[in-house]
Protein backbone atom coordinates (compact mmCIF):
# COMPACT_ATOMS: atom_id res chain seq x y z
CA UNK A 1 0.00 0.00 0.00
CA UNK A 2 1.58 3.35 -1.02
CA UNK A 3 1.98 6.11 1.58
CA UNK A 4 -0.90 8.60 1.73
CA UNK A 5 1.59 11.27 0.74
CA UNK A 6 5.28 11.06 -0.12
CA UNK A 7 7.33 14.17 -0.73
CA UNK A 8 10.89 13.90 -1.95
CA UNK A 9 13.52 16.63 -2.43
CA UNK A 10 10.74 19.20 -2.80
CA UNK A 11 11.96 22.75 -3.40
CA UNK A 12 10.12 25.89 -4.34
CA UNK A 13 11.70 29.13 -5.50
CA UNK A 14 9.56 32.25 -5.92
CA UNK A 15 11.22 34.70 -8.31
CA UNK A 16 10.48 38.34 -7.66
CA UNK A 17 8.81 39.51 -10.86
CA UNK A 18 9.27 43.19 -11.52
CA UNK A 19 9.23 45.14 -14.74
CA UNK A 20 12.86 46.27 -14.35
CA UNK A 21 14.03 42.65 -14.46
CA UNK A 22 11.86 41.87 -17.45
CA UNK A 23 13.11 44.93 -19.34
CA UNK A 24 16.78 44.37 -18.62
CA UNK A 25 16.53 40.57 -18.91
CA UNK A 26 18.43 40.37 -15.62
CA UNK A 27 17.84 37.28 -13.53
CA UNK A 28 15.35 38.36 -10.86
CA UNK A 29 16.14 37.80 -7.20
CA UNK A 30 13.73 35.66 -5.23
CA UNK A 31 13.05 33.50 -2.22
CA UNK A 32 13.49 29.80 -1.61
CA UNK A 33 10.16 29.03 0.10
CA UNK A 34 10.97 25.32 0.38
CA UNK A 35 14.33 23.60 0.32
CA UNK A 36 14.76 19.87 -0.18
CA UNK A 37 11.70 18.91 1.86
CA UNK A 38 11.35 15.19 2.32
CA UNK A 39 8.82 13.12 4.28
CA UNK A 40 6.27 10.34 4.04
CA UNK A 41 2.92 10.06 5.74
CA UNK A 42 1.24 6.67 6.05
CA UNK A 43 -2.51 6.18 5.85
CA UNK A 44 -4.23 7.23 9.08
CA UNK A 45 -1.34 9.34 10.37
CA UNK A 46 -1.56 12.93 11.56
CA UNK A 47 1.28 15.34 10.89
CA UNK A 48 1.12 18.84 12.36
CA UNK A 49 3.45 21.38 10.83
CA UNK A 50 4.44 24.35 12.94
CA UNK A 51 6.80 27.19 12.25
CA UNK A 52 7.16 30.96 12.08
CA UNK A 53 5.15 33.02 9.59
CA UNK A 54 6.61 32.86 6.11
CA UNK A 55 8.50 29.64 6.76
CA UNK A 56 6.86 27.77 3.84
CA UNK A 57 4.09 25.83 5.59
CA UNK A 58 1.22 26.97 3.38
CA UNK A 59 3.44 26.71 0.30
CA UNK A 60 4.00 23.05 1.15
CA UNK A 61 0.23 22.43 1.40
CA UNK A 62 -0.44 24.25 -1.87
CA UNK A 63 2.25 22.26 -3.66
CA UNK A 64 0.67 18.98 -2.50
CA UNK A 65 -2.77 20.32 -3.47
CA UNK A 66 -1.38 21.03 -7.00
CA UNK A 67 -2.09 24.76 -6.66
CA UNK A 68 1.60 25.52 -7.13
CA UNK A 69 4.28 23.98 -9.31
CA UNK A 70 7.49 22.97 -7.54
CA UNK A 71 10.87 24.17 -8.74
CA UNK A 72 12.10 20.64 -8.28
CA UNK A 73 11.16 17.51 -6.39
CA UNK A 74 8.38 14.97 -6.42
CA UNK A 75 5.00 14.61 -4.71
CA UNK A 76 3.05 11.36 -4.64
CA UNK A 77 -0.50 11.37 -3.30
CA UNK A 78 -1.61 7.80 -2.63
CA UNK A 79 0.91 6.69 -5.26
CA UNK A 80 -0.26 9.24 -7.86
CA UNK A 81 2.32 11.70 -9.14
CA UNK A 82 0.78 15.10 -8.37
CA UNK A 83 2.78 16.74 -11.15
CA UNK A 84 2.05 14.24 -13.91
CA UNK A 85 -1.52 13.41 -12.93
CA UNK A 86 -2.86 16.40 -10.97
CA UNK A 87 -6.53 15.47 -11.47
CA UNK A 88 -5.91 11.96 -10.10
CA UNK A 89 -4.05 13.43 -7.12
CA UNK A 90 -6.86 15.92 -6.43
CA UNK A 91 -9.42 13.12 -6.34
CA UNK A 92 -7.52 11.68 -3.38
CA UNK A 93 -7.14 14.84 -1.30
CA UNK A 94 -9.27 17.43 0.38
CA UNK A 95 -7.92 20.93 1.00
CA UNK A 96 -9.35 22.89 3.91
CA UNK A 97 -8.28 26.46 3.24
CA UNK A 98 -9.85 28.16 6.29
CA UNK A 99 -10.77 30.97 3.90
CA UNK A 100 -14.39 31.97 4.47
CA UNK A 101 -14.41 34.08 1.34
CA UNK A 102 -13.89 30.98 -0.79
CA UNK A 103 -17.60 30.23 -0.41
CA UNK A 104 -20.46 32.07 -2.09
CA UNK A 105 -21.92 34.24 0.65
CA UNK A 106 -25.30 34.80 -1.01
CA UNK A 107 -25.91 31.08 -1.47
CA UNK A 108 -26.99 28.75 1.30
CA UNK A 109 -24.66 26.21 2.84
CA UNK A 110 -26.46 23.45 0.95
CA UNK A 111 -26.17 25.29 -2.37
CA UNK A 112 -22.45 25.89 -1.77
CA UNK A 113 -21.76 22.26 -0.89
CA UNK A 114 -23.95 21.04 -3.77
CA UNK A 115 -21.89 23.11 -6.20
CA UNK A 116 -18.57 21.78 -4.93
CA UNK A 117 -19.96 18.23 -4.77
CA UNK A 118 -20.75 18.39 -8.47
CA UNK A 119 -17.20 19.57 -9.20
CA UNK A 120 -16.14 16.38 -7.43
CA UNK A 121 -18.40 14.38 -9.82
CA UNK A 122 -20.79 13.58 -6.95
CA UNK A 123 -24.55 13.64 -6.68
CA UNK A 124 -25.25 16.22 -3.93
CA UNK A 125 -28.41 14.38 -2.83
CA UNK A 126 -26.38 11.36 -1.76
CA UNK A 127 -23.03 12.98 -0.91
CA UNK A 128 -24.18 15.85 1.31
CA UNK A 129 -26.46 14.33 3.99
CA UNK A 130 -23.87 12.00 5.61
CA UNK A 131 -21.19 14.71 5.73
CA UNK A 132 -23.66 17.28 7.06
CA UNK A 133 -24.75 14.81 9.73
CA UNK A 134 -21.19 13.98 10.80
CA UNK A 135 -20.29 17.66 11.13
CA UNK A 136 -23.57 18.69 12.77
CA UNK A 137 -24.48 21.01 9.92
CA UNK A 138 -28.05 19.87 9.30
CA UNK A 139 -29.73 22.81 11.12
CA UNK A 140 -27.69 25.34 9.12
CA UNK A 141 -27.88 23.99 5.58
CA UNK A 142 -30.58 26.29 4.23
CA UNK A 143 -29.42 29.65 5.55
CA UNK A 144 -27.28 32.00 3.53
CA UNK A 145 -23.58 31.35 4.01
CA UNK A 146 -22.75 34.91 5.07
CA UNK A 147 -25.11 34.60 8.03
CA UNK A 148 -23.11 31.82 9.71
CA UNK A 149 -20.71 32.30 12.60
CA UNK A 150 -17.00 31.74 11.93
CA UNK A 151 -17.20 28.37 13.69
CA UNK A 152 -20.02 27.13 11.46
CA UNK A 153 -18.24 28.46 8.37
CA UNK A 154 -15.18 26.47 9.38
CA UNK A 155 -17.31 23.34 9.67
CA UNK A 156 -18.63 23.97 6.15
CA UNK A 157 -15.01 24.28 5.06
CA UNK A 158 -14.35 20.86 6.58
CA UNK A 159 -17.49 19.49 4.92
CA UNK A 160 -16.34 20.73 1.51
CA UNK A 161 -13.02 18.96 1.97
CA UNK A 162 -14.72 15.74 3.07
CA UNK A 163 -17.48 15.51 0.46
CA UNK A 164 -15.61 13.10 -1.79
CA UNK A 165 -14.29 11.02 1.14
CA UNK A 166 -10.61 11.73 0.39
CA UNK A 167 -7.91 9.68 2.06
CA UNK A 168 -5.72 12.74 2.66
CA UNK A 169 -6.83 15.99 4.27
CA UNK A 170 -4.70 19.11 3.96
CA UNK A 171 -5.59 21.76 6.50
CA UNK A 172 -4.32 25.29 6.71
CA UNK A 173 -4.76 26.58 10.25
CA UNK A 174 -8.18 24.97 10.82
CA UNK A 175 -8.80 26.64 14.19
CA UNK A 176 -7.52 30.15 13.48
CA UNK A 177 -9.93 32.91 14.59
CA UNK A 178 -12.12 30.41 16.42
CA UNK A 179 -13.21 30.88 20.01
CA UNK A 180 -12.03 28.16 22.45
CA UNK A 181 -15.29 26.18 22.29
CA UNK A 182 -15.44 26.24 18.47
CA UNK A 183 -11.74 25.33 18.29
CA UNK A 184 -12.39 22.40 20.64
CA UNK A 185 -15.29 21.28 18.44
CA UNK A 186 -13.11 21.38 15.35
CA UNK A 187 -10.38 19.40 17.15
CA UNK A 188 -12.95 16.79 18.18
CA UNK A 189 -14.17 16.56 14.61
CA UNK A 190 -10.61 16.13 13.38
CA UNK A 191 -10.04 13.35 15.92
CA UNK A 192 -13.25 11.72 14.71
CA UNK A 193 -12.14 12.03 11.06
CA UNK A 194 -8.71 10.63 11.87
CA UNK A 195 -10.44 7.80 13.71
CA UNK A 196 -12.06 6.87 10.39
CA UNK A 197 -8.58 6.19 8.99
CA UNK A 198 -8.05 9.50 7.18
CA UNK A 199 -4.58 10.96 6.90
CA UNK A 200 -4.27 14.55 8.07
CA UNK A 201 -1.56 17.04 7.23
CA UNK A 202 -2.23 20.18 9.23
CA UNK A 203 -0.52 23.54 9.43
CA UNK A 204 -1.05 25.37 12.69
CA UNK A 205 0.37 28.00 15.01
CA UNK A 206 -1.38 26.61 18.09
CA UNK A 207 1.15 24.51 19.97
CA UNK A 208 -1.34 23.43 22.63
CA UNK A 209 -3.49 22.10 19.81
CA UNK A 210 -0.57 20.07 18.46
CA UNK A 211 0.03 18.63 21.90
CA UNK A 212 -3.64 17.77 22.40
CA UNK A 213 -4.09 16.18 19.01
CA UNK A 214 -0.99 14.00 19.20
CA UNK A 215 0.53 12.52 16.03
CA UNK A 216 3.76 13.56 14.40
CA UNK A 217 5.06 17.12 14.52
CA UNK A 218 7.39 18.92 12.14
CA UNK A 219 8.95 22.35 12.12
CA UNK A 220 9.25 24.44 8.99
CA UNK A 221 11.80 27.20 9.18
CA UNK A 222 13.31 29.12 6.28
CA UNK A 223 11.82 26.57 3.91
CA UNK A 224 13.45 23.61 5.67
CA UNK A 225 11.50 20.75 7.17
CA UNK A 226 12.48 18.89 10.29
CA UNK A 227 10.48 16.45 12.29
CA UNK A 228 10.38 17.22 16.02
CA UNK A 229 10.44 14.61 18.74
CA UNK A 230 9.91 16.01 22.23
CA UNK A 231 12.16 14.67 24.92
CA UNK A 232 10.75 13.14 28.09
CA UNK A 233 8.74 15.75 29.99
CA UNK A 234 9.44 18.43 27.38
CA UNK A 235 6.45 20.57 26.45
CA UNK A 236 5.67 21.35 22.84
CA UNK A 237 6.25 25.02 23.55
CA UNK A 238 9.74 24.38 24.95
CA UNK A 239 10.62 22.13 22.05
CA UNK A 240 9.34 24.64 19.52
CA UNK A 241 11.25 27.56 21.04
CA UNK A 242 14.43 25.48 21.25
CA UNK A 243 14.04 24.32 17.64
CA UNK A 244 13.39 27.82 16.28
CA UNK A 245 16.31 29.24 18.26
CA UNK A 246 18.59 26.57 16.85
CA UNK A 247 17.45 27.25 13.32
CA UNK A 248 15.42 24.10 13.01
CA UNK A 249 18.37 21.81 13.65
CA UNK A 250 17.30 20.04 16.79
CA UNK A 251 19.09 16.91 17.85
CA UNK A 252 16.48 14.18 18.28
Amino acid at each position, binding site marked *: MPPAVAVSRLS*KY*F*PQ*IELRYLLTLRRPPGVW*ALQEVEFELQAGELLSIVGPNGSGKT*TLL*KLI*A*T*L*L*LPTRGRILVDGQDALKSP*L*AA*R*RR*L*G*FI*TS*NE*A*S*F*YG*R*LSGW*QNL*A*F*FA*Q*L*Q*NLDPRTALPPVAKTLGLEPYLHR*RFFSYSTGIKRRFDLA*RGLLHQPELLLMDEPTTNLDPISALEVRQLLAQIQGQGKTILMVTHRLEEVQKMGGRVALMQDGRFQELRPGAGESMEDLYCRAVAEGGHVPA
Partner: protein
Amino acid sequence: MFLRKVWAFVVRDFLEDLSYPLSFFWRVGSILFHLVTFYFVGRLVGAAVLPQLTPYGGQYFPFAMVGLALASFQGVALMSVSRTVLYGMYTGTLEAMLVTPTSLPTIIFSSVLYQFLAALLEILIYLGFSFWLFGVPLGQADPWAAAVMLALTLLSHLPLGILSAAFVLIFKQGDPVTLLLGRLSALLGGVYFPLQVLPSWLQSAAQFIPFTHALEGLRQAVLSGRGLAQLSTQVVILSAFAVVLLPLSLAAFAFAVRQAKRLGTLSQY
Protein backbone atom coordinates in the same frame (compact mmCIF):
# COMPACT_ATOMS: atom_id res chain seq x y z
CA MET B 1 -20.20 14.25 -16.18
CA PHE B 2 -18.91 17.32 -18.02
CA LEU B 3 -22.42 18.60 -18.67
CA ARG B 4 -23.37 18.12 -15.02
CA LYS B 5 -20.43 20.28 -14.02
CA VAL B 6 -21.36 22.93 -16.57
CA TRP B 7 -24.92 22.87 -15.26
CA ALA B 8 -23.64 23.28 -11.68
CA PHE B 9 -21.96 26.54 -12.68
CA VAL B 10 -25.08 27.82 -14.45
CA VAL B 11 -27.23 27.02 -11.40
CA ARG B 12 -24.68 28.65 -9.06
CA ASP B 13 -24.65 31.88 -11.07
CA PHE B 14 -28.42 31.89 -11.50
CA LEU B 15 -28.92 31.50 -7.73
CA GLU B 16 -26.42 34.29 -7.06
CA ASP B 17 -28.23 36.51 -9.55
CA LEU B 18 -31.55 35.60 -8.00
CA SER B 19 -30.26 36.66 -4.58
CA TYR B 20 -30.07 40.23 -5.93
CA PRO B 21 -33.63 40.53 -7.29
CA LEU B 22 -33.48 44.27 -7.88
CA SER B 23 -30.37 43.94 -10.02
CA PHE B 24 -32.35 42.28 -12.85
CA PHE B 25 -34.92 45.07 -12.87
CA TRP B 26 -32.19 47.70 -12.90
CA ARG B 27 -30.59 46.01 -15.88
CA VAL B 28 -33.89 45.97 -17.74
CA GLY B 29 -34.49 49.58 -16.69
CA SER B 30 -31.09 50.63 -17.95
CA ILE B 31 -31.81 49.02 -21.34
CA LEU B 32 -35.04 50.96 -21.50
CA PHE B 33 -33.34 54.28 -20.66
CA HIS B 34 -30.69 53.56 -23.26
CA LEU B 35 -33.31 52.89 -25.89
CA VAL B 36 -35.40 55.94 -25.00
CA THR B 37 -32.30 58.15 -25.36
CA PHE B 38 -31.51 56.80 -28.79
CA TYR B 39 -35.16 56.87 -29.80
CA PHE B 40 -35.12 60.64 -29.37
CA VAL B 41 -31.77 60.94 -31.12
CA GLY B 42 -33.44 58.97 -33.90
CA ARG B 43 -36.33 61.41 -33.99
CA LEU B 44 -33.86 64.29 -34.16
CA VAL B 45 -32.15 62.92 -37.25
CA GLY B 46 -35.29 61.24 -38.58
CA ALA B 47 -36.16 63.91 -41.07
CA ALA B 48 -32.65 64.17 -42.47
CA VAL B 49 -31.59 62.22 -45.51
CA LEU B 50 -29.11 59.56 -44.39
CA PRO B 51 -28.04 57.56 -47.42
CA GLN B 52 -25.58 55.54 -45.29
CA LEU B 53 -28.54 54.05 -43.42
CA THR B 54 -30.39 52.90 -46.53
CA PRO B 55 -28.97 49.32 -46.38
CA TYR B 56 -30.39 49.04 -42.85
CA GLY B 57 -33.87 50.34 -43.59
CA GLY B 58 -33.09 54.07 -43.55
CA GLN B 59 -34.01 54.75 -39.88
CA TYR B 60 -31.46 55.72 -37.22
CA PHE B 61 -33.15 54.20 -34.15
CA PRO B 62 -33.26 50.55 -35.35
CA PHE B 63 -29.69 50.96 -36.60
CA ALA B 64 -28.48 52.19 -33.19
CA MET B 65 -30.60 49.65 -31.28
CA VAL B 66 -28.87 46.67 -32.91
CA GLY B 67 -25.51 48.37 -32.31
CA LEU B 68 -26.24 48.89 -28.62
CA ALA B 69 -27.49 45.34 -28.14
CA LEU B 70 -24.46 43.75 -29.79
CA ALA B 71 -22.06 46.10 -27.99
CA SER B 72 -23.43 44.85 -24.67
CA PHE B 73 -23.03 41.24 -25.86
CA GLN B 74 -19.48 41.97 -26.98
CA GLY B 75 -18.71 43.50 -23.59
CA VAL B 76 -19.64 40.21 -21.93
CA ALA B 77 -17.50 38.24 -24.39
CA LEU B 78 -14.52 40.50 -23.77
CA MET B 79 -14.77 40.92 -20.02
CA SER B 80 -16.53 37.92 -18.52
CA VAL B 81 -13.53 35.60 -18.45
CA SER B 82 -11.13 38.08 -16.88
CA ARG B 83 -13.78 39.21 -14.37
CA THR B 84 -14.40 35.60 -13.42
CA VAL B 85 -10.69 34.96 -12.96
CA LEU B 86 -10.23 38.16 -10.93
CA TYR B 87 -13.20 37.39 -8.67
CA GLY B 88 -11.95 33.85 -8.16
CA MET B 89 -8.45 35.04 -7.29
CA TYR B 90 -9.73 37.76 -4.99
CA THR B 91 -12.09 35.55 -2.97
CA GLY B 92 -10.19 32.28 -3.10
CA THR B 93 -13.03 30.48 -4.89
CA LEU B 94 -10.69 29.81 -7.82
CA GLU B 95 -8.33 27.82 -5.58
CA ALA B 96 -11.27 26.02 -3.98
CA MET B 97 -12.40 24.93 -7.45
CA LEU B 98 -8.90 24.09 -8.60
CA VAL B 99 -8.41 21.48 -5.88
CA THR B 100 -11.33 19.51 -7.31
CA PRO B 101 -10.82 17.13 -10.23
CA THR B 102 -12.08 19.79 -12.63
CA SER B 103 -9.81 21.23 -15.29
CA LEU B 104 -9.21 24.95 -15.47
CA PRO B 105 -10.70 25.32 -18.99
CA THR B 106 -13.91 23.66 -17.72
CA ILE B 107 -14.00 26.02 -14.74
CA ILE B 108 -13.46 29.10 -16.87
CA PHE B 109 -15.85 28.24 -19.71
CA SER B 110 -18.57 27.09 -17.35
CA SER B 111 -18.15 30.17 -15.18
CA VAL B 112 -18.95 32.50 -18.07
CA LEU B 113 -21.79 30.50 -19.60
CA TYR B 114 -24.51 32.04 -17.44
CA GLN B 115 -23.26 35.52 -18.28
CA PHE B 116 -23.62 34.71 -21.97
CA LEU B 117 -27.11 33.40 -21.46
CA ALA B 118 -27.96 36.60 -19.58
CA ALA B 119 -26.41 38.69 -22.36
CA LEU B 120 -28.48 36.79 -24.90
CA LEU B 121 -31.59 37.54 -22.87
CA GLU B 122 -30.61 41.22 -22.86
CA ILE B 123 -30.44 41.19 -26.66
CA LEU B 124 -33.95 39.74 -26.75
CA ILE B 125 -35.08 42.47 -24.34
CA TYR B 126 -33.53 45.12 -26.63
CA LEU B 127 -35.41 43.64 -29.59
CA GLY B 128 -38.63 43.17 -27.62
CA PHE B 129 -38.73 46.73 -26.30
CA SER B 130 -37.89 48.10 -29.74
CA PHE B 131 -40.69 46.10 -31.33
CA TRP B 132 -43.43 46.61 -28.76
CA LEU B 133 -42.63 50.05 -27.34
CA PHE B 134 -41.01 51.84 -30.24
CA GLY B 135 -42.63 50.15 -33.21
CA VAL B 136 -39.45 48.93 -34.88
CA PRO B 137 -40.55 46.47 -37.59
CA LEU B 138 -38.84 43.11 -37.07
CA GLY B 139 -41.06 40.92 -39.22
CA GLN B 140 -38.46 40.83 -41.99
CA ALA B 141 -35.64 39.61 -39.70
CA ASP B 142 -33.97 36.30 -40.46
CA PRO B 143 -33.72 34.69 -36.97
CA TRP B 144 -31.41 31.86 -38.07
CA ALA B 145 -28.94 34.22 -39.68
CA ALA B 146 -29.10 36.43 -36.57
CA ALA B 147 -28.46 33.42 -34.31
CA VAL B 148 -25.47 32.35 -36.40
CA MET B 149 -24.09 35.89 -36.31
CA LEU B 150 -24.43 35.94 -32.50
CA ALA B 151 -22.70 32.56 -32.20
CA LEU B 152 -19.87 33.77 -34.43
CA THR B 153 -19.65 37.02 -32.45
CA LEU B 154 -19.16 34.90 -29.35
CA LEU B 155 -16.60 32.58 -30.95
CA SER B 156 -14.58 35.43 -32.42
CA HIS B 157 -14.63 37.59 -29.26
CA LEU B 158 -14.31 34.97 -26.55
CA PRO B 159 -10.65 34.31 -27.47
CA LEU B 160 -9.96 38.00 -26.87
CA GLY B 161 -11.61 37.65 -23.47
CA ILE B 162 -9.44 34.61 -22.75
CA LEU B 163 -6.32 36.57 -23.77
CA SER B 164 -7.44 39.30 -21.42
CA ALA B 165 -7.85 36.74 -18.60
CA ALA B 166 -4.36 35.38 -19.31
CA PHE B 167 -3.01 38.91 -18.89
CA VAL B 168 -4.97 39.38 -15.65
CA LEU B 169 -3.65 36.09 -14.24
CA ILE B 170 -0.10 37.38 -14.46
CA PHE B 171 -0.32 41.16 -14.20
CA LYS B 172 -3.65 41.45 -12.28
CA GLN B 173 -4.52 44.98 -13.46
CA GLY B 174 -4.27 47.17 -16.55
CA ASP B 175 -5.53 44.62 -19.04
CA PRO B 176 -4.88 46.19 -22.47
CA VAL B 177 -6.96 43.76 -24.53
CA THR B 178 -10.35 44.72 -23.15
CA LEU B 179 -9.49 48.38 -22.81
CA LEU B 180 -8.16 48.79 -26.32
CA LEU B 181 -10.66 46.57 -28.07
CA GLY B 182 -13.67 47.87 -26.17
CA ARG B 183 -12.82 51.46 -27.05
CA LEU B 184 -11.80 50.66 -30.62
CA SER B 185 -14.98 48.70 -31.25
CA ALA B 186 -17.13 51.57 -30.00
CA LEU B 187 -15.31 53.98 -32.30
CA LEU B 188 -14.66 51.83 -35.36
CA GLY B 189 -17.26 49.08 -35.04
CA GLY B 190 -20.17 51.28 -36.08
CA VAL B 191 -22.28 51.10 -32.93
CA TYR B 192 -23.53 54.70 -33.09
CA PHE B 193 -22.91 55.69 -36.71
CA PRO B 194 -22.35 53.97 -40.05
CA LEU B 195 -18.71 53.34 -40.92
CA GLN B 196 -19.08 55.37 -44.10
CA VAL B 197 -18.91 58.61 -42.10
CA LEU B 198 -15.35 57.75 -41.01
CA PRO B 199 -12.28 58.76 -43.04
CA SER B 200 -11.27 56.02 -45.46
CA TRP B 201 -8.13 55.05 -43.49
CA LEU B 202 -10.22 54.50 -40.36
CA GLN B 203 -12.72 52.50 -42.40
CA SER B 204 -9.82 50.27 -43.50
CA ALA B 205 -8.59 49.94 -39.92
CA ALA B 206 -12.10 48.93 -38.83
CA GLN B 207 -11.92 45.84 -41.04
CA PHE B 208 -9.33 44.34 -38.67
CA ILE B 209 -11.79 44.35 -35.76
CA PRO B 210 -14.13 41.34 -35.57
CA PHE B 211 -16.88 43.46 -34.05
CA THR B 212 -17.23 45.49 -37.28
CA HIS B 213 -18.13 42.34 -39.24
CA ALA B 214 -20.29 40.90 -36.47
CA LEU B 215 -22.35 44.07 -36.23
CA GLU B 216 -22.69 44.45 -39.97
CA GLY B 217 -23.88 40.84 -40.24
CA LEU B 218 -26.37 41.16 -37.39
CA ARG B 219 -27.81 44.41 -38.71
CA GLN B 220 -28.25 42.91 -42.16
CA ALA B 221 -29.93 39.83 -40.67
CA VAL B 222 -32.25 41.72 -38.29
CA LEU B 223 -33.03 44.92 -40.20
CA SER B 224 -32.80 43.80 -43.83
CA GLY B 225 -33.72 40.15 -43.50
CA ARG B 226 -30.56 38.92 -45.21
CA GLY B 227 -29.98 35.18 -44.99
CA LEU B 228 -26.74 33.32 -44.35
CA ALA B 229 -25.98 33.00 -48.06
CA GLN B 230 -25.94 36.78 -48.37
CA LEU B 231 -23.85 37.14 -45.23
CA SER B 232 -21.16 34.72 -46.33
CA THR B 233 -18.44 37.41 -46.19
CA GLN B 234 -19.14 38.11 -42.52
CA VAL B 235 -19.44 34.39 -41.75
CA VAL B 236 -16.07 33.63 -43.36
CA ILE B 237 -14.27 36.57 -41.70
CA LEU B 238 -15.65 35.88 -38.22
CA SER B 239 -14.92 32.17 -38.55
CA ALA B 240 -11.35 33.00 -39.57
CA PHE B 241 -10.95 35.22 -36.48
CA ALA B 242 -12.29 32.37 -34.31
CA VAL B 243 -10.13 29.66 -35.90
CA VAL B 244 -6.94 31.70 -35.53
CA LEU B 245 -7.60 33.28 -32.14
CA LEU B 246 -9.15 30.40 -30.21
CA PRO B 247 -6.11 28.05 -30.10
CA LEU B 248 -3.82 31.04 -29.64
CA SER B 249 -5.78 32.31 -26.65
CA LEU B 250 -6.06 28.87 -25.05
CA ALA B 251 -2.30 28.40 -25.37
CA ALA B 252 -1.71 31.85 -23.83
CA PHE B 253 -4.09 31.02 -21.00
CA ALA B 254 -2.44 27.67 -20.30
CA PHE B 255 0.93 29.45 -20.23
CA ALA B 256 -0.44 32.10 -17.84
CA VAL B 257 -1.85 29.45 -15.48
CA ARG B 258 1.48 27.64 -15.46
CA GLN B 259 3.29 30.90 -14.75
CA ALA B 260 0.84 31.77 -11.95
CA LYS B 261 1.40 28.34 -10.38
CA ARG B 262 5.14 28.80 -10.75
CA LEU B 263 5.14 32.32 -9.31
CA GLY B 264 2.53 31.58 -6.65
CA THR B 265 0.23 34.35 -7.82
CA LEU B 266 -2.90 32.27 -8.42
CA SER B 267 -4.46 33.58 -5.22
CA GLN B 268 -2.96 37.05 -5.30
CA TYR B 269 -4.90 40.06 -6.41
